[in-house]
């Protein structure tokens, strides 16, 4: 089977492309600074942050981490299959990737519903202001990632697909970025305080 390759050793072409990696770093810095600010604020109100953290459902956060990690695994498999020119397998793994994303959003929606029902809205206290802003901003990324994956999936379904490996890798890198951001959010919001 023919293998499609890109020159990822080139400094100007990291896997996914240089522009996407610039975006990834900007996003990581944005979330990183917001999380650092959250930790600094927690020093002023340690009791509030601790009691608020206990109001979150760690099992939901843990399950969502598992959904995103599994989804990332299937995304990597999908790229691997695409490189091997096996578009059928690639589509199959891509569907599993999207399923992980949809399950994440479903559970997150339920979690949000519970919080709103309990009156724990964005203005409840400092902890919940950070919780809503950071997790909602992440959810927007997941939604955008899913839209990108759906369009990639649609391209793969065409009989004469003109989808380039570079585009596929860029979409995958964006999806993995959602994983990376969640890996920053989960320990700080759900576990540490």
């Amino acid at each position, binding site marked *: 089977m023919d293998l499609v390759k890109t020159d990822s050793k080139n400094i100007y072409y990291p896997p996914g492309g240089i522009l996407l990696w610039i975006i990834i770093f900007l996003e990581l810095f944005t979330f990183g600074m917001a999380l650092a600010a959250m930790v600094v604020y927690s020093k002023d109100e340690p009791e509030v942050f601790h009691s608020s953290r206990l109001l979150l459902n760690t099992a939901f956060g843990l399950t969502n981490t598992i959904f995103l990690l599994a989804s990332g*695994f299937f995304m990597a498999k999908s790229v691997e299959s695409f490189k091997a020119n096996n578009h059928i397998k690639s589509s199959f793994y891509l569907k599993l990737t999207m399923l992980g994303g949809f399950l994440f959003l479903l559970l997150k929606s339920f979690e949000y519903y519970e919080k709103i029902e309990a009156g724990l809205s964005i203005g409840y206290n400092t902890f919940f202001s950070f919780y809503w802003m950071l997790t909602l901003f992440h959810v927007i990324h997941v939604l955008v990632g899913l839209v990108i994956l759906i369009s990639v999936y649609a391209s793969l379904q065409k009989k004469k697909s003109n989808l380039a490996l570079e585009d596929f890798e860029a979409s995958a890198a964006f999806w*993995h970025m959602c994983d990376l951001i969640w890996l920053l959010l989960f320990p700080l919001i759900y576990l540490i305080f």
Partner: protein
Amino acid sequence: MKNHLYFKVLLSLLTLTILAALVVTLDIGLKTASAIILLFFMLKFLGVAFYFMELKTAHVFWKSAVLIFVSIFFGIILIVV
């Protein structure tokens, strides 16, 4: 080969996630618990970046950039916590 590698990485990531959640239940103090949890998540972050995102095949500049970001981020969090 790669098939098994990705699966091994996924298993390691899931194990670290569950272990991190268990650390919270232990009575070892905030600082120690935070350090352990952050170490686990640092490893997970690098696992996703280097294997799933295939950064291990990239130019050393990108590998170093990710390592520097992770070290600074977790360093700052650990100092403040």
